[in-house]
Structures are given as structure tokens and as C-alpha cells.
């Protein structure tokens, strides 16, 4: 069966420090991968998605970047964190479809990031 891992679960970082959040998927090949951010009590904002190794689409201009060095690994990074980067970060995957609309997404447990 497929599983998705995210770590760390909680992170407290000072303003200006770097960030690296990792997401890995097991039990599937060539998944679509997604990074979302969720502010408290709000919906999900799509940050990045990837349909293959080295293929990253950015949804909003921001202080963050993403990379997909391996098929089932998705990394969210920042060189210098801002206060506004605080939030709940969720990684998700979905089955790659050669045609037709996207199906369901499977979410990781999330990382709570607090920037002080």
C-alpha cells in the first residue's frame, strides 16, 4: 500500500534562517506531488506541484522553492525565512494520469512551522 511521510512534524525557526522540509512517498511510481500551505482556520493554498523528476510548477510568487531530486521525494526550501512563512505545510500525492482529470489526492501528516 502507498504511504506518504513528512518531516519534521513541528519546527520552530528564527527569521532569516534556512528551511528544508522533506516529503517522501512509498508504494507508487511517478506520482504527482504537491506542496500546500494552510494558515490557521483557512483553506489550502497550493504552493508547488510536480509531475515528474525535476519538473516543478510554482503557483504563487514567494520566498520558497521546491525540488524533486528523486521520483518519490519532494523538498520545500527557503534560504531565508520570513515571519509570513509560518503555517501548516502539507505534502500530497496523486496518481499520474495520461489523460483525464486529476483524481483524489493523498495527504501527509503535515509540518507545523513557526517562524519567530
Amino acid at each position, binding site marked *: 500500500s502507498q504511504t506518504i511521510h513528512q518531516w519534521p512534524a513541528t519546527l520552530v525557526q528564527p527569521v532569516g534562517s534556512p528551511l528544508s522540509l522533506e516529503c517522501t512517498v512509498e508504494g507508487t511510481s511517478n506520482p*504527482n506531488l*504537491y506542496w*500546500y500551505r494552510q494558515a490557521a*482556520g*483557512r*483553506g*489550502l493554498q*497550493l504552493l508547488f*506541484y510536480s*509531475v515528474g523528476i525535476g519538473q516543478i510548477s510554482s*503557483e504563487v510568487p514567494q520566498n520558497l522553492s521546491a525540488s524533486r531530486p528523486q521520483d518519490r521525494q519532494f523538498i520545500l526550501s527557503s534560504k531565508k525565512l520570513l515571519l509570513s512563512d509560518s503555517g*501548516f505545510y*502539507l505534502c*500530497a500525492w*496523486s496518481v*499520474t*494520469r495520461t489523460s*483525464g*482529470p*486529476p*483524481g*483524489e*489526492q*493523498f*495527504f*501527509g*501528516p*503535515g509540518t*507545523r512551522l513557526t517562524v519567530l
Partner: protein
Amino acid sequence: SQQGEEDPQALSIQEGENATMNCSYKTSINNLQWYRQNSGRGLVHLILIRSNEREKHSGRLRVTLDTSKKSSSLLITASRAADTASYFCATDEKTSGSRLTFGEGTQLTVNP
């Protein structure tokens, strides 16, 4: 406003009652999905309804879709305290490729 907006923002009911949440969207879609999120956790997929479907059931869940009104509803029957969570609709616009757009969610509280 965003694609996929739920209302109400918050709903509080007693165990055993039914809970209805609504979602509106703006553009043509392929599918509409509903997800559940327990506090501080990841989202869990509940149900997907295609644009050519009008109603779908899964256990105590009933989802309707009205493409002419660009709206969907999620009904949870005979609610339980364990149904307490946030519920989100998500749409995939016909031009969005692999992306979903999530609404702001409805916070449901079921009181025992």
C-alpha cells in the same frame, strides 16, 4: 473570491442530527471532491463526484452536484461526535491540469 467556497464557515449540531455543508465554485470543472481534516492533521479524501453526476452516496455521506448553479452539497446523516472536523471541497478546473483548488472549509462540531 476563491474557486470552491464553503458555507457555512462553522456549524454546530447535536449527535444524531444531519449536517449539510455547501460549496460554490466559479468555473467549469471536471470533478468536485470533498475532504475532511481533523485538527492539526492532513486531509483525508471522502468522495469524488464527476461533472456528469448529480448525486453520490458513500455510507452516511451524500453529495450532490448542480453544475448549472455551480454548487455542491455534502450531507452527513446521523452525525457522531467523531465527525467533528473541517470539511473542504476541492475542484479541478477544466484548464488546471493536475491541480485542485480548495475552499476555505466548514468547521463542523458535533456535540455529544
